[in-house]
């Protein structure tokens, strides 16, 4: 469904992605791993439309999307959850969900039910400012917000980064619950999460795709994966 075809991406004159190609089949959950600065965030941002490749193409269901603005990419069914866990902190939790519902044209009640099914505790703080949520709750709200409107493709950048083990369990449960219904590209450094959820893994190094792992035995072997980080 998604094809990234030998793209180069630069920040000004500094080229950070070199000839990167990945692809995603319908219903797959693919993980991208790699050291800090490998270019994982840059790759997701480029697919989401926030950066333009200087070379190469990106296509979604056969249509080129690399020239589109981020909001246009989103309207074609792609949702990007950034690494910084930034919610709209001045709005309430409900307000955050409301904007997603408004943007996706989904009725508010349905959107609220969708997000609360991921995390029923939100019921108690729908009227609270989202700025008061914990890191884990923010991430769940962001993922929930992204699921509103039933997107085709989710791009999630390091969902468990900086979270306590118990909260990582919540995120893991949510991601595995989504596995059958959406396609996703997830950047993640927690290899136990990666090995339990990945259909395939791309390993990035210095702005290139270093390896692609498809063999389930290799994917399960976290000790082996460790070598790439």
């Amino acid at each position, binding site marked *: 469904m998604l094809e990234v075809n030998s793209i180069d991406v630069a*920040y000004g004159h500094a080229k950070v992605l070199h000839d990167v190609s990945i692809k995603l089949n319908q219903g797959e959950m693919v993980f991208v791993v790699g050291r800090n600065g490998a270019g994982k965030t840059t790759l997701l941002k480029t697919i989401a439309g926030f950066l333009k490749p200087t070379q190469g193409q990106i296509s979604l269901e056969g249509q080129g999307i690399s020239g589109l603005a*981020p*909001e246009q990419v989103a*309207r074609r069914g792609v949702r*990007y959850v950034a690494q910084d866990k930034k919610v709209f902190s*001045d709005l309430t939790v409900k307000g955050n969900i409301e904007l*997603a519902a*408004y943007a*996706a044209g989904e009725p508010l009640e349905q959107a609220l039910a969708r997000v609360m099914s991921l995390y029923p505790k939100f019921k108690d703080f729908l009227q609270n400012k989202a700025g008061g949520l914990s890191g884990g709750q923010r991430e769940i709200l962001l993922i929930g917000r992204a699921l509103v409107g039933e997107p085709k493709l989710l791009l999630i950048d390091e969902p468990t980064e900086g979270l306590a083990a118990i909260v990582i369990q919540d995120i893991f449960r949510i991601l595995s619950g989504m596995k059958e219904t959406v396609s996703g590209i997830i950047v993640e450094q927690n290899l136990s999460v990666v090995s339990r959820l990945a259909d395939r893994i791309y390993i990035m190094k210095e702005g290139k795709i270093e390896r692609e792992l498809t063999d389930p035995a290799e994917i399960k072997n976290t000790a082996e994966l460790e070598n790439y980080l």
Partner: protein
Amino acid sequence: MIDTILYGLTIGAILYIFSIGLSITFGTMQIVNFAHGMVYSLGVYLFISFLPWTLRIFPLAMALAIAAMLPVAYLIERFIIRRLYGESLDYAIIATYAVLLIGADLIKYIWGTAPQPVSDPIGVPLVVLGVVIQLYRVVVFLSAVVLFFALRIFFTRHVIGKIVVAALEDRDGVRALGLDVNKYFSIAFVIGSGLAVLGGVLYAPITTSEPYMGFHILLLAFAVVIVGGMGNLTGTFISAFVLGMVIAITGRVYSSAADTMVFVVMALVLLKNPIFSFVRRLRGRPAHG
């Protein structure tokens, strides 16, 4: 004393109404928008011209002047402000300053340089504790308070208001949901411009209008926005009244220092909350729109 307080509240009200748009543009687009002063002064001159045609019905002439300036504001946003997003701060200052100068020249060309007085539309004096005050000034103050609550409701209840609030904080997050932030900033910009005209018209009977009136209020409004926090509408409300009182009280003691004191207060605020963070915020915007 009462008249000094009322004067401070009146000036605070005008500064608040004018500064809202400036604060939103600072906060959303990170652009220093001098063109706001042009919208303000041209709007007031249109109002003055409309007055005789509307049988001197003040609110009607005011509504017409605001309506006339909305398309102008839209064009400024669409063809100048939006193109400056993500460009260097200096370009924004130069381009919008040019608009301000063109506005002043246009006014001189059409209406001449003579100051234009407008008479008090209510003209009812009140006696409070033995002091005569003008009812009109009370009305101006109350208008600002009503506006403050109306905007609060808009920004907390209406979905467009919420989008603007969200975009003030995380522009990319709003775009990632599939919303075209430019469209909402444009709406906010036009509302802010309409309010600048409203402020200018309300101020016209208290002062006299002249072609460079936009320059003067802009300087004061920048102080209001910096003291109140860019994009912080409650902060803008409070700082407008604080600075309005500073102007009124200083003016009573030593009138030529009134405006200077505003900048002394601004300097104190910046010293506490260093200017570097202000400049960094303006400079540290993304290179990609």
